[in-house]
């Protein structure tokens, strides 16, 4: 898919700085800054209403920021000489004319961007939509619509891909396909920025995450690092017929003991060997002793606690 253009790394870097958008009574995005690197899939996470869509639309010059700005490869989107050859985007609330066929939808875009007409056929092939090329958009399933959106984004063979909740409405098979597709693009050295509120999916897909809540940055970094930074989140799961005895044995240390509601104890503040030793000393019988690392979902819920919800 690459055509041998020289592409210095920063050519495909996204930089968001101080981005702010105020709608009449909502601060949708509040002084948001982060960067997105090429060659990696970056998950853009936040609860509903966090400001993800607004941020992506400002990045693409569809919405005018109240303050701040964003660049792609050092240039604002409208300054790009050939925007579709540089950036491909799949956005929510973006669609095709219901009465137009899929292939014609793509041809219209090719014409506007000065791309050769054959790109439309190639892009349809790429997303596996060739059999539905001559069907009207209104007859497309949700998954087919999403694929057509991706085909449109790929028309110019761009180095930067921006997708807003692409997994919405896809079936498990579609989600799997999307995951493989996006990972492949990142492997080719492209920048892939994907917004989502589906955390388990993001954990499988993203290399980096940018987490926002209520329009503000909460955390940015590689997934492992962000999860690891929640050190107090590491807990030990213990199954024992003598729960009370173990709780008593740990009472004098830094440990916190909770029930997981399913007959096991979740012990925080100490590591597994410490728990094992305490159990041995107290003669407590153990049936399970495992270290539980927090997953993205737990980190996310902790980080965004109290900031979610409708604004």
């Amino acid at each position, binding site marked *: 898919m690459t055509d041998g253009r020289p592409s210095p790394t920063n050519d495909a870097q996204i930089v968001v700085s101080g981005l702010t958008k105020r709608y009449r009574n909502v601060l949708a995005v509040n002084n948001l800054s982060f960067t997105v690197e090429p060659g990696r899939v970056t998950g853009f996470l936040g609860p509903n209403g966090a400001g993800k*869509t*607004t941020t992506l*639309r400002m990045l*693409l*010059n*569809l*919405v*005018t920021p109240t303050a701040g700005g964003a660049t792609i490869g050092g240039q604002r*989107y*409208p300054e*790009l000489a050939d*925007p*579709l050859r540089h*950036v491909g*985007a799949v*956005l929510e*609330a*973006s*669609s*095709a*004319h*219901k*009465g*137009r*066929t899929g292939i*014609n939808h793509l*041809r*219209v*875009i090719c*014409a*506007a*961007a*000065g791309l050769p007409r054959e790109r439309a056929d190639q892009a349809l092939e790429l997303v596996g939509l060739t059999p539905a090329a001559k069907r009207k958009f209104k007859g497309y399933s949700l998954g087919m619509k999403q694929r057509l959106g991706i085909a*449109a984004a790929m028309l110019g063979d761009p180095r930067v891909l921006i997708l807003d909740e692409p997994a919405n409405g896809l079936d498990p098979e579609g989600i799997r396909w999307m995951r493989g597709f996006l990972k492949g693009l990142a492997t080719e050295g492209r920048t892939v920025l994907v917004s989502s509120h589906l955390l388990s999916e993001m954990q499988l897909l993203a290399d980096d995450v940018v987490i926002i809540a209520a329009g503000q940055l909460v955390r940015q970094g590689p997934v492992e690092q962000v999860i690891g930074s929640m050190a107090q989140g590491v807990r030990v799961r213990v199954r024992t017929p003598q729960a009370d005895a173990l709780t008593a044995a740990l009472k004098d240390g830094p440990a916190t003991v909770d029930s997981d509601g399913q007959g096991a104890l979740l012990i925080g503040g100490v590591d597994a060997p410490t728990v094992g030793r305490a159990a041995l000393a107290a003669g407590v019988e153990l049936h399970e002793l495992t270290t539980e690392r927090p997953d993205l979902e737990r980190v996310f819920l902790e980080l965004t606690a109290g900031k979610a919800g409708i604004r």
Partner: protein
Amino acid sequence: MSNLVRSELLKIRTTSTWWWLAIGAFLSIALAFAFNAWLASETLSGGGEEFGYTGDAASAPAQAANLYTSGQYLGLMFVMLIGILMVTNEFFHQTATTTFLATPRRTSVIVSKLIAASLLGFAFWLVTTIIDLAAGATFLSLNDYGTLLGEWEVQRALLLNLMAYAIWTVLGVGIGTLITNQLGAVITASVLYLIGTQVVGLLFLLLANVLDNMAVIKWQVVWPAAASQVMITPGENEMLPAWWVGALVLVGYAVVSGVVGILITRRRDVS
């Protein structure tokens, strides 16, 4: 820019709405031509007074001009609707995002829509005129008037008809950018075009009576549809401004709505 115009024309060609409007326009030509032909034969055989045709208006060239521009009244409305749909479709079908991603310079998008609209207006005029010329020349020759195509009055009517088609399509694009709600724009514009003209005519007649000054009727020309009528009507009198006044007013509306449309579109958040 030529890429963008090509893209706009492709958008039109690849949906069926436009074809329905074209069929509507050509049906209205057929009806209008039949009516005008009947009118011409009545008038030219001396019965013009019944319809208010006297003097110049009852002459063969005037009747020929009328015949050769048959279908204009509804045709102009159809091209205006196409102009409107060129813009409102982008919002109704949520394609504005795709369009502005491909071309972030929004002024270019609207300008290319204006150019594509004028080309389309020209195409409508061309097809309409070819049909009218074929049918009109046959009708007039059969009635021993000859084609009358050498008459300046006839040629002038054809050219002004062309101008009317181009301006009304452009005006449609302007209206679309001002009212992006598809149904809202289509209904408003149709009502203003079809019913508005009568209402405005009546209002000015009332006003003229109240002020006891018939020249006030002239000022109907500020209304776009009335301006269009003035532009294509030969002659000038106390109650009828010269054709170029109508043309100027109409061009003025097209320019103002186009410019305001561009300014609004540049600032609009697409979400």
